């Protein structure tokens, strides 16, 4: 809220008037109090172009975040609206796209790796190293035990069917390509994404 200097003075003066003068019958002084409109909240916000994360219309969006990317300012996202230049949505957004702010700042956003031991009753926070080391260990042990290099007829098949993976259909194509490389280099075939639903 950047109350400009002139506005600041007007407010304090009015305050005085209301209390002292008002009692003496100068009521109409109050009319001058009417302050102007709510200040425009994006006045100095940083604008970033992005694409809505939900459906395949892939509406263009403008993300407004606090600060001007100065080092000490954590660029918190404060508003998201449609990109008027985008040829498909032309600035419009559906009820989901218009509420993207609430998914970015959802209280149920995950913020730390969590691990649930076998039979345990709740999650406990762990470090990334612990989680990824443990996952790599579990995957290697299972792969070494169940990897099928050759099938019954002796044909080299190099497949690993005892660990499966589901890929996200909202992740970027770059993520998808890297995920494909890693999964297939391990021989995974139980490997699908939301296109299957």
């Amino acid at each position, binding site marked *: 809220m950047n109350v400009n200097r002139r506005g600041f003075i007007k407010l304090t003066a009015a305050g005085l008037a*209301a*209390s002292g003068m*008002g*009692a003496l*019958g*100068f*009521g109409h002084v*109050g009319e001058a109090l009417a302050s102007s409109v709510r200040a425009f909240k994006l006045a100095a916000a940083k604008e970033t172009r992005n694409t809505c994360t939900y459906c395949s219309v892939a509406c263009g969006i403008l993300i407004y975040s606090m600060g001007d990317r100065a080092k000490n300012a954590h660029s918190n996202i404060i508003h998201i609206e449609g990109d008027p230049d985008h040829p498909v949505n032309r600035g419009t957004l559906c009820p989901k796209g218009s509420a993207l702010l609430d998914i970015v700042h959802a209280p149920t956003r995950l913020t730390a790796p969590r691990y649930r031991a076998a039979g345990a009753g709740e999650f406990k926070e762990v470090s990334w190293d612990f989680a990824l080391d443990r996952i790599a260990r579990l995957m290697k042990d299972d792969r070494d035990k169940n990897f099928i290099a050759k099938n019954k007829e002796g044909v080299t098949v190099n497949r690993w069917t005892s660990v499966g993976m589901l890929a996200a259909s909202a992740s970027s194509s770059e993520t998808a390509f890297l995920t494909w490389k890693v999964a297939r280099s391990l021989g995974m075939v139980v490997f699908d994404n939301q296109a299957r639903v």
Partner: protein
Amino acid sequence: MTYPKGTIVRASALTRINHWLTAGCFVLLVLSGLAMFHPLLFWLSNLFGGGQWTRAVHPWIGCVLFVSYLGLIIQFWRDNLPGMGDVRWLAKINRVIVNDEEDVPEVSRFNAGQKLVFWGMAFLVPVLFFTGLTVWEVYFGAYTSIETQRVTLLIHSLCAIGAIILWMIHVYAAIWVSGSMRAMTQGYVTPGWAWRHHRLWLRRLVETNSRGPTPGANHDLGR
């Protein structure tokens, strides 16, 4: 109660407290009500600490007024019952208005004017209370439809104006008939006052050797 010797008790302590509580509430309601009634008077809301406080406190005072006025009704309704005497009194209103008590009929405890004020307020205050309830947004906004609230708000305004005018007449009457103010502040009147303004009332007191405020009340007339 230490009333001066030889005086007649017009209003007991309880009555006076009750009366002035009602009067106090009424004044505050007038001030806060008028603040919300007309833009020219909105500055009155500063007496209550601004518009929000005025709107917030007005209904509560209304509740107090309603309860305290019930007290007055309980105490005075019997002596305010209208009778033929009042009609005759009213017929002589032109003499009353110019302080000429000569052939004005004798008046018991309350004259027709006072009865008009009493019954006027006895009608207006409950109506103001109940219409006020319906437009008491904070607690009762949802209980009646907006159409009803438009009507009750209009009635509330009209009754308020009526009550204010009636109140102004009542206050002036107290000033006009000297001694009346003291009657409601100190509680006593001189026998002469009683003779001049409420002769029937005086006669009944004397008959029952009562010093007031009502016949047979306490029996130390003349002490």
